[in-house]
């Protein structure tokens, strides 16, 4: 993760302005960008087909689902929580959720990727909010085996990433800040309003305008 993501207020750089950009895609089944939203397009929602197999207990299909989603899940959770050890824990829970509740995925309601990422984001945000509530943020020793800065350097530059960056760049600064603080920051719209010194009404509108613009720029399913 980079500062662009962690400190969305600093500038319009988008989620990850440096690091892997320009690096050649390495390919391979576990490529982090993997089957990003490039591969999520219905009706050929390949990930959705795999999930249907997972729902029937197919472990090979689960391995494939894991390889396509775990990088995004871990990366997003890490963006929200920042603590590597905690993020790994939450990401593991999410991946187990995917296995457990694959039968509950309903392709009529959205793509498989959106389903997985919603599971993941909800869990990350729940963790943030329960911690804030107990106000005793557990201080973990960094037991993580991963040096994320190195990982960030090594992460392939995916088309998805470039595209999202470009689209985030097309938002107004307020729209971008509202969206990134909510999504990557895990803040509620009220907290975002406080952070930006704006009314909640303004923030809600900026979030909506920004996310709609992002959606349209990305050309995702609607």
């Amino acid at each position, binding site marked *: *993760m980079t500062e662009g993501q962690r400190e969305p207020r600093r500038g319009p750089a988008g*989620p*990850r302005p440096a690091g892997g950009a320009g690096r050649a895609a390495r390919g391979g089944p*576990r*490529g*982090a960008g993997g089957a*990003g*939203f490039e591969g*999520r397009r219905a009706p050929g929602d390949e990930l959705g087909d795999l999930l249907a197999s997972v*729902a029937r207990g197919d*472990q090979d299909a689960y391995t494939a689902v*894991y390889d396509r989603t*775990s990088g*995004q899940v*871990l*990366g*997003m959770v*890490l*963006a929200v929580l920042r603590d590597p050890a905690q993020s*790994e824990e939450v990401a*593991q829970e999410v*991946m*187990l959720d995917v*296995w*457990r509740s694959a*039968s*509950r995925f*309903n392709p009529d*309601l*959205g*793509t498989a*990727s*959106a*389903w997985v*990422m919603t599971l993941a*984001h*909800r869990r990350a945000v729940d963790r943030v909010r329960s911690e804030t509530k107990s106000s005793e943020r557990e201080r973990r020793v960094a037991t993580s085996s*991963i040096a994320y800065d190195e*990982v*960030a350097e090594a992460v*392939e530059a*995916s088309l*998805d*990433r470039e595209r*999202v*960056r470009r689209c985030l760049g097309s938002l107004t600064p307020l729209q971008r800040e509202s*969206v990134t603080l*909510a*999504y*990557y920051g895990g803040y*509620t*719209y009220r907290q975002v309003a406080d952070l930006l010194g704006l009314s909640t*009404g303004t923030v*809600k509108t900026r*979030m*909506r305008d920004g*996310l709609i613009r*992002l959606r349209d720029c990305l050309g*995702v399913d*609607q």
Partner: protein
Amino acid sequence: MRFRRSDPHTLAAAYAMDAVPPPDQARFERHLAGCDSCRQEVRGLREATAALAAAAAVDPPAAFRDAALRAAAQTRQLPPADSASPARWATFRGRRRSAEGYGRPARGYDLSAGGYGRPAEGFGGRRSDGWSGRPGWLGRAGWLGRAGWLGWLGWRSRLVVALACVLAAVAVAAGVTTYGMQDRLDQAQRRDLTVAAVLTASDATMMSVHVTTGGTATVVMSHRERALVFTAADLRALPGARVYELWLMGPAGTRPAGMITVSGHGRMVGPMVVSGLAVGDKVGLTVEPAAGSPRPTSTPVLMLSLTFSS
């Protein structure tokens, strides 16, 4: 509240990003239930947020992968949401608990026909402050009567019908929630079964009392089930640093039985399920610090002896 003054549509993006705090969330979900275009919009915006996640991807280590695959191999999967089962609450009326009726997880109304929610399962994991719909089965002085006991014969059928209305309202709200609710639903389902068991128990008894600081509490209890269902209406709103806490007090000791946040006046609270009743227990309600308290620290605003009918 604030919500009503503004156009609820504007919350779609915040909702898609899980950025709506619980009280607003419950309201927005009720709005979603009747707003096709809003559901469509949330759906499209969720796809956009998935792209935001994709942009944050990292390369997880092999150890992470091994652990995930091992965990999956050792974990039983959930069955598909049962969309074929009819609205089981219709069969609920006044029936005794039976193995057939309650042995399996409860399913509420099947909203899948609407194309959006998956079948709602029982209580929708709502928090107490999500109950502001005030379905009105409490606080109807007409049949609730004033404080005190009511005969069980008449109230039970009315209660079951009224509860079915509550469940329907909640099922609508739950049915429109999208993903990530499964844990909460599973939890709610268990609670749901206990509520059903208490209400249909042969020794179920209902009592209703005024809370000294305002509002009415109603308890349905079953000694046989060793459980009670607690609801309240019109509890006085407390400042943010305080909550209501429910207790069981008796020869078996004083045990905390749950906390209640009342964010606005006039809200309905519950149903809360309290299990583990012991003979001689009373139900108490006190005002405690927001984090709750292991022991009551203030004078109860409600104290109700649980008399056991045999």
